[in-house]
């Protein structure tokens, strides 16, 4: 029997880092405020005290410097796990991630590589306004050589983070900060539950080492009428929207954007004949466009309705209009019904 504990997502991520640091001295953690203070979201709490000053330390306020130095450490042979405080602030490091981390293995024909795991909180629903709410997965999905991973619950968060650290490729690990403390169904007026009292099995987290493999989606809910593709916070919003629609929908949590579990997606859409895609990021050029194209290419003969995309609007993330912008269960339910009732 594997020993488990009820954990929220923060504790699960902390546990993943603790387990890997305990197993492998080449794993080190650094970033702005992650050392002594334990991180602005507490994900690295206690790691410096337990593993030492040199294993988990604070960094100057320079995202390019954090990622650039992590690439150098990885080229030496370490397994750095740097943190970018908010995904909104990863852009100063975009050149390092795109031009260097993602290409180092390819351009050196395998002589050098950069197995860096970049953890960064992303996503909205927290009144974060323009620069504490963004979902930048599409700008990383387009970069060949990067892997992009997004968990939706504590169990996956720990298992996917361990798998990411062990992966030989650079990984952008996006943490839905809306889900740090508990599941969120996209209904801001509803009373919030913590992971511990959520009643969800995904808050039972093994205390030791385990992996959730990259590139494998999870089937959250089996259904026959329509396939809903989601990841991160939107997995829970999708559950609520499916319940609202009263439709027997199949819900797939992609878990990794790259590598993408294309087989799980095609098998489901070929079964249901309909597909609705849900993400927080704005719609135009969002990852939903890629998903839609793939489904159309691979499931054309099976489709009984146009593929629907429910996403953030094409604007910077607004503050006062948060719940108008946020693609909540009502909008998803409408799209599901439109797909099912098509013709």
């Amino acid at each position, binding site marked *: 029997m594997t020993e488990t504990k009820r954990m929220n997502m923060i504790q699960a991520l902390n546990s993943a880092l603790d387990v890997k640091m305990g197993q492998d001295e080449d794993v080190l953690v650094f970033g702005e405020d992650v050392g002594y203070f334990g991180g602005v979201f507490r994900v690295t709490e206690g790691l410096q005290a337990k593993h030492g000053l040199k294993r988990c330390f604070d960094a100057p306020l*320079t995202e390019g410097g954090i990622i650039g*130095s992590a690439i150098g*450490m990885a*080229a*030496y042979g370490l397994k750095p796990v740097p943190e970018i405080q908010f995904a909104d602030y990863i852009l100063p490091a975009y050149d390092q991630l795109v031009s260097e981390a993602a290409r180092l293995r390819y*351009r*050196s024909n395998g*002589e050098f590589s950069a197995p860096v795991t970049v953890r960064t909180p992303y996503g909205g629903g927290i009144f974060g306004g323009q620069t504490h709410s963004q979902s930048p997965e599409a700008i990383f999905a387009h970069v060949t*050589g990067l892997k992009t991973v997004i968990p939706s619950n504590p169990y996956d968060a720990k298992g996917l983070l361990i798998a990411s650290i062990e992966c030989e490729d650079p990984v952008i690990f996006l943490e839905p900060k809306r889900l740090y403390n508990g599941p969120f169904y996209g209904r801001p007026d509803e009373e919030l539950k913590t992971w511990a009292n959520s009643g969800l099995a995904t808050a039972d987290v093994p205390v030791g080492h385990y992996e959730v493999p990259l590139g494998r989606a999870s089937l959250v809910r089996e259904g026959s009428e329509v396939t809903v593709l989601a990841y991160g916070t939107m997995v829970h919003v999708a559950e609520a929207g499916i319940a609202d629609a009263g439709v027997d929908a199949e819900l797939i949590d992609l878990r990794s954007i790259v590598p993408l579990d294309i087989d799980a997606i095609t098998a489901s859409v070929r079964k249901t004949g309909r597909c609705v895609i849900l993400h927080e990021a704005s719609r135009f050029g969002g990852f939903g466009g890629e998903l839609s194209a793939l489904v159309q290419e691979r499931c054309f003969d099976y489709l009984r309705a146009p593929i629907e995309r429910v996403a953030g609007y094409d604007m910077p993330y607004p503050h006062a209009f948060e719940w108008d912008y946020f693609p909540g269960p009502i909008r998803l339910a409408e799209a599901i019904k439109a797909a099912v009732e098509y013709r």
Partner: protein
Amino acid sequence: MPQEDARVTKSNLPRLELHIPEPPSRPDTEVSFAHVNRGEAGAVRRPDIAEHESNMRDLPYELIRVLDDDDRAVGPWDPKLAPETLIKGLRAMVLTRAFDDRLFRAHRQGKTSFYMKSTGEEAISAAQSMALDKGDMFFPTYRAMAWLHARNYPLTTLCNQIFSNAEDPLAGKQLPILHSAREYDFYSISGNLGVRFVHAVGWAMASAYKNDTKISLAYVGDGTTAEGDFHEAMTFAAAYRAPTILCVTNNQYAISSFAGFAAPERLPFAAKALAYGFPGIKVDGNDFLAVWGATQWAAERARTNNGPTLIEFYTYRAEGHSTSDDPSAYRPKDEAKHWPLGDPVERLKDHLIALGAWDEERHAALEAELKEKVKIAVKEAEAIGTLGQSKPPIEEMFEDVFAEKDWRLKEQLRELKRRRAGDSAAGEGA
């Protein structure tokens, strides 16, 4: 807008003027290096490696030189090398020049798409390649090939990379001269400027983290100091006292822009280190012995946990930026001849002759020998194939995007192979 004009003319404030830096000379003016203060060879003090940074703040404003105008080695920065070592260094520099000349011509003959020479800057990476230990990692720019020549990297392999042929060590994935040579402690070069300056600091931090004994060495050119990465690397190096040697190879030009765009003309790049709290020194980059002596000092500091050093190598880019550049469009044609610090190859040669360890005949023989060596290497590489005449296997194109190919790459490789098979079948039919 008469109303706005009235508002301006009513003001008593002086009118602002935008300053645009201009180089000391242009194609239609006399060459002027009046701003270059060579100082005296041997005149700059050499502090103890453990000296506190606050006691070394005068150093960036002096030019460290060892070879004087009588070709003698003088002063405290003289690394006191044996003549055989100096001859090895001279050989690496002459080889670099011969290789550059031959491969530049290969570009003109259509055998490669691109080439960049390091003429005038050979002393820097040749001396550093020899002064540092095996295992110390070099984060080069595209103008540092003397590092590889000093370590006897196979010339044919270099040519294979430049020709992107079937034996290209980078399997045709990378532009000519953006080499990668891990076995030679030579980090993968990329086209993006400055980014690898930060990698060098991270690499050095990793070495210190593992209680290793290795240090790192990195270059940026004068132009690239303007990139944010320069600041990031300096900040990280200072904060974590990384065992690294950060170098600015100031060759006065970034393509057509003179160094005055990256830093005011009177401010040495070396002085930028003062703002970060570690020593900066300015070194005659055309003086093989000064480069070696300065590198040794910085390496000792790094190896003894005294932290990073910034070295500005003061030099001159004697030729065009690349095969795509014609420098006579923006600076006097004969400017290189007037460079007050001379030519690095000539200066080391003259020093060896002054020592009685070398003569013109031996030098001519060395030039002829290396020219022949390069010619043979180019011929060997040509036999494998030049640009477009020979390629690595197509499968290579899909390798090393990730450690293992994902489904997209597998599908795309299959698709490309199918198309190629179809093409050749159609070709045979026609």
